[in-house]
């Protein structure tokens, strides 16, 4: 009798191939199509010659390509982050921002954008917002990590994260209350989240750092699987719970923080994609789900970004609205079809 479920494995392989194909298609779409019409022949020229001097070349290389990649990576990171936290808390309604990561980032960005200290004659460094969001996200992460080592149960940590989120929100709204109308405009825009305006160096950082973290996460699939049974069984099987907790939180918050720092808070992907992946690949095995979420997160975000850009072009829609709008019904229908309780 064969123990390996060959049928399941094949099915999973097929899904992987389909998703990978969609990924290529959606990246291509994002590069080919935009609010500025660029013909295929022009595109060919621009790509072959790596031409950035002309406006169209600039658009393709520095606006569309970087945005396409940013969306893919951003989505991938968020999805994996959501998966990690869902396994960690053994709670299906947890997303990457549950621990207050995006609230912390928002708070720091509001400091920078809304207080007079940074405006005025000083030329605003283009990295200020990114930097402050980074500081906010990772600062929150450090606080969470230091608490995580002292706390017994996961629920306590969850509540701490929620409270931190609320606290950050509160301070942010006070800042908004006192800010000038003009500045609020920019801030509100940031809060909506967007993959627009990514620069190549930002993408490089994302890919390199994120890549390392993803490799680490894949290497943690074995204890992650053990963790599905809960902390007590996991520790009885040999998982070093202390170390594991820290590593998982570090990875999840890092990934989420990175995306939030450069793109602002993008909702729903981290929460929904792990569920979609579980239902598609029909497994809870994290060895399959980690790459699965990676790919699915990338594809879905990429497609949503395309819609956000092109639905009412050249007017841009907020990406969080699109992700929720299309994502929620998909998850619902998948659940209804399978009659599965997660």
């Amino acid at each position, binding site marked *: 009798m064969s123990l390996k479920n060959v049928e399941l494995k094949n099915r999973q392989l097929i899904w992987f191939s389909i998703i990978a194909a969609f990924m290529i298609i959606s990246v291509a779409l994002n590069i080919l199509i935009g609010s500025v019409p660029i013909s295929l022949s022009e595109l060919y020229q621009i790509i072959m010659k790596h031409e950035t001097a002309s406006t169209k070349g600039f658009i393709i290389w520095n606006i569309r390509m970087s945005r396409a990649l940013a969306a893919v990576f951003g989505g991938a990171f968020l999805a994996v982050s959501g998966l990690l936290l869902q396994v960690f808390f053994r709670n299906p309604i947890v997303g990457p921002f549950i621990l207050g990561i995006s609230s912390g980032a928002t708070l720091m960005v509001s400091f920078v954008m809304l207080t007079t200290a940074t405006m005025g004659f000083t030329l605003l460094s283009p990295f200020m917002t990114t930097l402050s969001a980074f500081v906010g996200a990772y600062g929150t992460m450090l606080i969470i990590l230091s608490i995580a080592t002292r706390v017994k149960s996961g629920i306590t940590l969850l509540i701490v994260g929620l409270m931190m989120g609320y606290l950050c929100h509160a301070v942010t709204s006070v800042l908004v209350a006192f800010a000038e109308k003009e500045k609020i405009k920019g801030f509100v825009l940031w809060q909506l989240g967007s993959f627009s305006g990514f620069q190549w160096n930002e993408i490089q950082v994302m890919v390199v750092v994120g890549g390392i973290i993803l490799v680490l996460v894949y290497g943690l699939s074995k204890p992650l699987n053990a963790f599905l049974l809960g902390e007590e069984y996991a520790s*009885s099987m040999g998982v070093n719970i202390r170390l594991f907790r820290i590593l998982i939180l570090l990875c999840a918050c890092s990934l989420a923080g990175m995306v939030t720092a450069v793109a602002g808070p993008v909702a729903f992907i981290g929460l929904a994609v792990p569920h979609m992946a579980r239902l598609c690949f029909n497994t809870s095995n994290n060895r399959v789900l980690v790459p699965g979420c990676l790919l699915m997160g990338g594809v879905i975000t990429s497609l949503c970004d395309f819609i956000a850009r092109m639905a009412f072009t050249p007017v841009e829609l907020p990406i969080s609205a699109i992700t929720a709008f299309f994502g929620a019904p998909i998850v619902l229908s998948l659940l209804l079809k399978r009659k599965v*309780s997660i």
Partner: protein
Amino acid sequence: MNQSQPVLQVDKLSVGYQDKVVLQELTFQIEKGEFVSLLGPNGAGKTTLLRTLSRHLTPLTGTVYINQTDLKTMAQGHLARTMSVVLTEKVSPPFFRVLDFVALGRYPYTGFLGKLSPTDDKVVMAAIEMVHAMDLLFRDINTLSDGERQKILIARALAQEPQIILLDEPTMHLDLKHRMEVMTILQSLCRDKGISVVASLHDVDIAAKISDKVGLIKDARIIAWGEPENILRAKTVAALYDFEGAAFNRFLGSIEFRGNGTNGTVFVVAGMGSAAILYRLLSKRGFSIVTGVLHKNDLDFFVADSLGADCLTQSPMEVITPETVQKAKKRITEAACVIDTGFTLGDLNHENLDLLKAAMEMGKPLFSMRKDFNFSQLAPSSQDILFSCEDEARLVTMLEEWLRETSR
């Protein structure tokens, strides 16, 4: 059991939480292949003790030794290969087949990414076979019943190839079939595989029959530790659980419920093992029982004694003495009625016929299950209130009816 070192040894152990000591001054040891049951009321500290032994809690004072190694210093991987647990919490991650679930138990043995080698597969299959769950192999664990799930949890613990398994209330919520199955499986683990089992149980009677050792936990201590045959007596069990309405009989190995005796007193003439069922029924119906004359080696005596009946006894292998008969007759006068269980007549208990005769002559209603007997010959001058019944249930029904009618 002999020269070999104990698998688990506990020395002056105190367990509990930061602000609360739950158990203190525990010292015991467990040998290879022993089945140890921990008994005690809810909240006594059984779970706390198990959690400390599995290193989920740190001991407050004292030491735990696993194979002579201090638990505190033991490497986690080593511990995982030596000890596994079955806990009370319900785990059911989605999309898990039974096979995959049990395979998780191979965690301490698999490589970096957790892929299973052929050896691992063999162990997993053997574990599932041991718990008689081969028919559940590819089922989704969310579709299993409580009993099936419990077996699978044990299989998972087995897959860890432990020397000792700790189980927290393994038979809770299980129906009879699965309870028996689980206990048999655990027993075979001890006997056939030489795995030591430590389980917290509530069924005293089952524990008595299967365990090699029992530990009675109460009042922050282990009040008794040793073979169940020695430890489990009526008094100790009653003291352990603080109940009065039932009694544990170590000979019968079972628990009998004592009635409240408000329905009146009946005198049961019995013996030769004929009355056990009747006694229980009468007790259940609230009758206070006086019975005799029973020989002390008679089954009826054990049952009656457990039920708290008033017994008139005779030493085994002795003929019933006239004094005893006199005492019995006196008790008959106080009873509302007399029951004859149709016991076989022999040399040693012939005198019990006298009691029946006396009852009839006194005019006490006699309910009898005796067949082919000429009662009128026994007591020709009586007023014949005789009821013949076929079985215990009908007898008691008739009895109750009669009592109702006469009390009006």
